[in-house]
């Protein structure tokens, strides 16, 4: 194919951007948008079913997205070469995370449910990054279809656009691996199948099965169709959008336990879930991350139960709340139920820790990821040994594999960046008039894609993001995206090194 001549025609070359395979990026984004437009069928169906009057807005926004997608795919992205370099995959990641949330605002704006553009972007970003922070103080006033759409964005976001791209475009060559790794935060995910596209398909299947099972279980436990649809979308993706302003208060105990179980499940790596369902015991009996995840969960729930009981709540309430709350924080879902009468500061602090730590690598949850925390912990304790015995030859093993220095260095840098981002974000929030603890908690909750957290509430802040000034909303949106794509991509495209030839 005479590709090179084609690329040179493109004016981007004159802008000094020849290195980037713009066409492919445009084409892929276009395809994603088209799929997004098709997915609007679901809210449309809900709208027609409930007659909530939003059908025209949805049709119009669906069409707009479709036209945009077609334009990108067939006009800008025609004759694209299917070759994505490392540099471009960063660019692609960033571009897509700009394009999709922006397009995601269209339904909110057209239906008039969210008036301001900033708010719509915040809500949309919060959806696609599976954060779940909301500026809607009364979501139940929205048409049902838009609520379903809201949760559905989380579901799409949870699976990761990149995975969609990889799954759909089997032609994709070398670049696909990088996208796969970019989506899974460079934590060396095992592939489920030698074929990348097949492993993606398997992940996708697990994800869908999980969602479907949850929906059925919720229906069985007596939740309405509408709520179980929304809830299962936002639970499996660890998103946390709730179609009701009172949180999950209206759910029966049975439904609550279903939600809890699925929150815990969705904090586990999808690959591990696949092994679980295919009964490959050995694969996950040896996985340190899985056991640490469960261990930490049990331990912290116990501590928190004790903490709540000692400040004067009765045992049953404490236990129930603790389990729910810890599952929600650890998996970065961010659901909340009414708090026990007496709040314990110990729980606030533990929650903050859990939020930072986050879920397993390779799951839909956010945070620094347990795998990294384990590696760091092991490395640091090994470091102490080396301080005492400088000549000892030691190595750090995680999951029966020796961890290389290079990899450790990356994790360290990642955590450093993470903390730096939180501090910068918190600084901007203080500029907007929030108190220091509130700012830090909000920044941490959003960069970890947790969303609303009772933590903020317990410190005297509010769960409601609608009252924040515009700058704060933009800052938080940026943090959400940064947390979702794990910082490096964002840092990469703003660093001068990236633009050097």
């Amino acid at each position, binding site marked *: 194919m005479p590709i090179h001549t084609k690329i040179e025609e493109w004016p981007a070359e004159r802008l000094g951007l020849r290195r980037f395979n713009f066409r492919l990026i445009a084409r892929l984004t276009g395809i994603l948008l088209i799929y997004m437009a098709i997915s609007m069928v679901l809210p449309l169906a809900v709208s027609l079913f409930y007659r909530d009057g939003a059908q025209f807005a949805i049709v119009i926004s669906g069409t707009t997205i479709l036209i945009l997608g077609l334009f990108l795919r067939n006009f800008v992205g025609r004759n694209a070469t299917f070759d994505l370099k*490392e*540099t471009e995959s960063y660019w692609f990641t960033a571009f897509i995370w700009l394009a999709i949330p922006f397009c995601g605002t269209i339904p909110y704006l057209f239906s008039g449910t969210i008036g301001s553009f900033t708010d719509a972007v915040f809500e949309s970003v919060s959806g696609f990054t599976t954060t779940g922070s909301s500026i809607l103080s009364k979501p139940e006033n929205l048409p049902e279809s838009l609520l379903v759409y809201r949760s559905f964005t989380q579901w799409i976001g949870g699976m990761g656009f990149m995975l969609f791209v990889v799954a759909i475009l089997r032609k994709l060559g070398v670049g696909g691996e990088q996208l796969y790794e970019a989506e899974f935060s460079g934590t060396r995910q095992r592939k489920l199948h030698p074929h990348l596209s097949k492993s993606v398909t398997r992940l996708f299947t697990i994800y869908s099965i999980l969602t479907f099972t949850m929906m059925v279980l919720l229906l069985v436990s007596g939740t309405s169709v509408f709520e179980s649809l929304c809830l299962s979308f936002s639970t499996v993706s660890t998103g946390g959008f709730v179609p009701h302003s009172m949180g999950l208060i209206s759910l029966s105990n049975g439904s609550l336990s279903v939600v809890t179980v699925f929150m815990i499940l969705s904090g586990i790596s999808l690959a591990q879930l696949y092994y679980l369902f295919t009964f490959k015991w050995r694969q996950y009996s040896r996985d340190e991350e899985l056991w640490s995840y469960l261990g930490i969960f049990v331990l912290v729930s116990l501590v928190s139960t004790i903490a709540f009981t000692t400040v004067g709540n009765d045992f049953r309430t404490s236990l129930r709340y603790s389990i729910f709350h810890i599952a929600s924080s650890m998996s970065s879902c961010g659901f909340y139920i009414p708090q026990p009468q007496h709040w314990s*500061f*110990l729980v*606030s*602090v533990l929650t903050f*820790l859990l939020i930072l730590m986050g879920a397993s690598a390779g799951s839909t949850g956010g945070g620094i990821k347990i795998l990294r925390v384990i590696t*760091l912990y092991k*490395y*640091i*304790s090994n*470091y*102490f*040994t*080396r*301080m*005492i015995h*400088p000549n000892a030859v030691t190595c750090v093993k995680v999951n029966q594999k020796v961890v290389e*220095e290079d990899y*450790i*260095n*990356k994790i*360290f*840098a990642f*955590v*450093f*960046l993470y*903390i730096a981002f939180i*501090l910068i974000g*918190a*600084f901007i929030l*203080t*500029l907007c*008039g*929030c*108190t*220091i*603890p509130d*700012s*830090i908690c909000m920044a941490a909750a959003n960069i970890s894609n947790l969303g609303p957290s009772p933590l903020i509430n317990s*410190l005297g802040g509010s769960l409601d993001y609608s009252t924040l000034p515009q700058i704060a909303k933009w800052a938080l949106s940026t943090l959400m995206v940064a947390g979702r794509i794990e910082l*490096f991509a964002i*840092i*990469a495209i703003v*660093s001068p*090194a*990236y633009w050097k030839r």
Partner: protein
Amino acid sequence: MLMVEGLLILACLIPAFHFADGTWPAITASGLFTFNIGLFLTVSFHGAHRITDKRLAYLLVVIMWVVLSLFGTLPYLSTGATTSFANALFESTSGITSTGATIFSAVEWLPASILLWRSMTQWIGGFGIVLLVLALVPSMGINKYSLYTAEASGADNTGKQTTSMGATVRHTLGVYILLTCFFILVLWKSGLHIWDAVNITFTNISSGGFSIYNNSLEHLTHTQQYITAAIMLLSGINFSMLYYFLTLDWKRLRNKFDQLICYLTTFLIGAVFAILALALKMGYSWADAVRCGIVQTISVLTTTGSLVADTSQWWVPITFLFVVLSLCGGMAGATTGGLKTMRVLILIRNVRKILRDRLHPRSVNPVRLNRKPVSEDIITNVMVIFMVYAAVTFVGIMLLMLSGINATESIGAAIACITSYGPGLGTSGGFGCYADFTTSGKIICTLLMLLGRLECLTLIILFVPKFWSRG
């Protein structure tokens, strides 16, 4: 070391007699007591072999600091300045670690000898830190870790290192004493009473921040405030660098240029923001904003903790920025606390390196400092210290919150103590003090100060089970 401390306590007799404040018997007693114990220990361990085991080195350093802090409480207790042991320990540790957090709400009421003692502990502490870094770092198991020491190159053979170590200590001590004398003179000439001049110089050159007035630097004239700012700024610069500067050794000076530039840049950014915020948001006049902004930013960046105004009343973002700045701290090899400019630089450059590695997988991208590649070991060490520092800070905040202090104050106090800045946020910030903290809160803060001063690792390693096991 204890002997020195005993002598210094005795030195406090001079103001005690001079001002005739009636504390002299108590001071003499505690001075003599410390001196005797010091003497006893020195004599009994005279024949002890040189420290060869690293574990012993760690243990010794920690014990040294703990013992100094413990004996530092004697003057407070014996003169009845404070009756509770926790308070005395807090104050003494805060002095020795040059933190500057105080539990005295009204320092003007204290006898002059005690005030001098407070300042003096900081002065010893400040120097102790430099010594500590110099003495400890080579024994940290990484001989290559000579970034701190002046002679960055050729520290490989041990014989050479000992001689250069001795020289470095002498240079540093010289610079330290010279600067102290110089600034006492300057402050005195600027119209300050000699008593004030001595105290202010002692506490600021060591980046401590104890003050003999409740309103700290606000007590001084504007010129004197700027002079104090200069003291602080210098105290945040690596002492061997100052030595090279004084001896006009430009070649060696350039070896540390990176950190200096980074240090000054951080200062400038902080100061500009503070000035703008003060002038535009707080309604200060521009002259006042510039003065307060500059002086306070220096005080924060060098983790001194002297205050030109009641910072607890300042706009929240400024105080938050100050918290972050104090975490960065001044240059390594100076008296400041915090993470140190050098580490921050390495951390940032390491991120850049990783990006480059990913973008160009086959290229070699070393992390460079002062145009020299930094070895893996050092990067790892910096990273580990950073992580442990972050973890300790976090645990500190958590424990303070559990001891019943509210979130803002816990964050402020924990960071102020671990970075050895001093004033926290809320009631412990500004011209306030730590008097209202619960006893457990005070003990946690005391621990944090020690941890921060000993760069976390040295203290924590004592609690690693392997440390005590044989083999």
